[in-house]
């Protein structure tokens, strides 16, 4: 079994969201970078569990990003994985990124490609599906559970108002979310080991970009809270009905 996990670098969840250059760029000053939580907590940890269950499994990590991605790649390697590949580019267009992943995966012989369900910065949910189409592979998105049974993948995925259980042969692309696995903290042995694991850097292949960010906006600030005394909670219901017309 050979697994590829795609990991992306995102701002920490507490990062201040502000924009520079006339609101055309995300202001990165003072921002801490993390592995996109969906990639780390669910895609990567589930892949590590599969490797733990079958030691012959080969686990590769893939990041499409600049040199500033290397700290998060090392952190991912500290959790697990045999080696990492970084495709050296700062282009953030989803189709361009997916094309890079597909180019690496095409001849890699991977049975499974895992991504997070989305990144917490652009919330695109598009890489997994694009990679699957580029490679002509089936794709199951929003997976909350993944198991192998008699060489086939049995995947539970979230749907509106419930869940669905799917079965598919490998190779397969899966996007992962909560439920797949539990977050892990790298231990000292992992951190030390990660330093010597191979991190291969490859140059991007030629690919189109279809989208670009013209500008950013922040949502308008709230007008301020209207407080209702705790002993008159019925007043809240009246306001929601008559003033906000929300119930």
């Amino acid at each position, binding site marked *: 079994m050979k697994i590829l996990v795609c990991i992306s670098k995102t701002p920490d969840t507490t990062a201040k969201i502000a924009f520079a250059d006339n609101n055309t760029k995300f202001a990165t000053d003072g921002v801490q970078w993390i592995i996109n939580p969906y990639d780390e907590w669910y895609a990567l940890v589930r892949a590590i569990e599969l490797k733990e269950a079958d030691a012959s499994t080969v686990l590769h990590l893939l990041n499409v990003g600049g040199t500033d991605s290397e700290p998060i790649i090392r952190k991912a390697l500290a959790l697990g994985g045999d080696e990492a590949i970084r495709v050296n580019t700062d282009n953030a267009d989803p189709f361009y990124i997916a094309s890079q992943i597909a180019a690496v995966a095409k001849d890699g012989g991977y049975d499974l490609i895992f991504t997070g369900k989305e990144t*917490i910065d652009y919330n695109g949910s598009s890489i997994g599906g694009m990679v699957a189409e580029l490679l002509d592979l089936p794709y199951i*998105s929003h997976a909350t559970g993944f198991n192998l049974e008699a060489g086939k993948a049995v995947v539970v995925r979230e*749907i*509106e108002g*419930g869940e669905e259980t799917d079965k598919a042969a490998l190779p397969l692309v899966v996007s992962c979310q*909560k439920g797949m696995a539990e977050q892990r903290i790298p231990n000292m042995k992992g951190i030390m080991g990660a330093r010597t694991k191979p991190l291969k850097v490859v140059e991007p292949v030629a690919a189109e970009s279809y989208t670009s960010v013209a500008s950013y906006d922040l949502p308008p600030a709230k007008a301020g*809270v209207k407080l209702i005394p*705790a002993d008159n*909670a019925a007043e809240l219901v009246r306001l929601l009905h008559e003033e906000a017309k929300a119930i």
Partner: protein
Amino acid sequence: MSVLVFIDQSEGQIKKSSYEAASYAAQTAEKLGTVAEAIVLGTVADDLAALGNYGIKKVHTVADASLNNFDAQVYAKVISQAAEQTGADVVVFSNNTSGKAIAPRLSVRLKAGLVSGAVALPDTSNGFTVKKSVFSGKAFANITVSSAKKIIGLNPNSFNISTTGGTAEVAALSVSVDAAKVEVVSVNKVNGEVPLSEADIVVSGGRGLKGPENWNLVTDLAKLLGAATACSRPVADIHWRPHHEHVGQTGLAIAPNLYIAIGISGAIQHLAGVNRSKVIVVINKDPEAPFFKAADYGIVGDAFEVMPQIIDAVKKLKGVA
């Protein structure tokens, strides 16, 4: 040139978010000086001509029962044939779990730039730019699409449906349908529960509720209001509530009309997923809880004392004994 919208169905019924997408497609078409058409896959019980009321001129159906088994790969191939046959330049999806699975695949097939998470109509004054939610609702980005064809995934609850009257022409489309590689073994839906992503009203509980045994304070109110239920991350992590109820930056991002937060502190990661809600109500015993800064209405008080009063008042309002 035309705009094509994918109408998503589940067990034969059109999803609410698809009506938003239909209305969005119709208004996009109007801006572009063209018409909006729809594509529906699988067997549907709902009256498809009624999509005319949302501005759709023609509904193309592929009533092949094998399409009742959802496989994004098969769907994308059928929709790309539909886009070619109808000459669509813009394809609209609801940005729900099916839309997010199909739209990226279609983007590759049509060589079309994809904007997922759109919250407003495209700005066509200078090119083609679509506003979308980014940083899990903390900001918006205006995305310019440079390809000739475009795909838009509209965030649920982000666009007001407008009805136009009229009926759509319904006609079968002749396309080839591949055999599915993903077999849906079972579908497990909680009957009668409102899907969280589509809900108008969401009642949500945090660690302040002390334990799962107290959740009737959340579920009773939700039932009275026809609301969906949600929770903070730690509540799902300690298994007081199921994972799919976890909202926030690392759970589901939602934008209901009304969000009622009970015993939730309002950490930045929680706010990220809920701050696009139109009206936010916070009930928390700590006046310093950060959630009050993001709220429209608030009660500083003990949920165990306040909630029964609220539930009683809503019962009176709804005329329930």
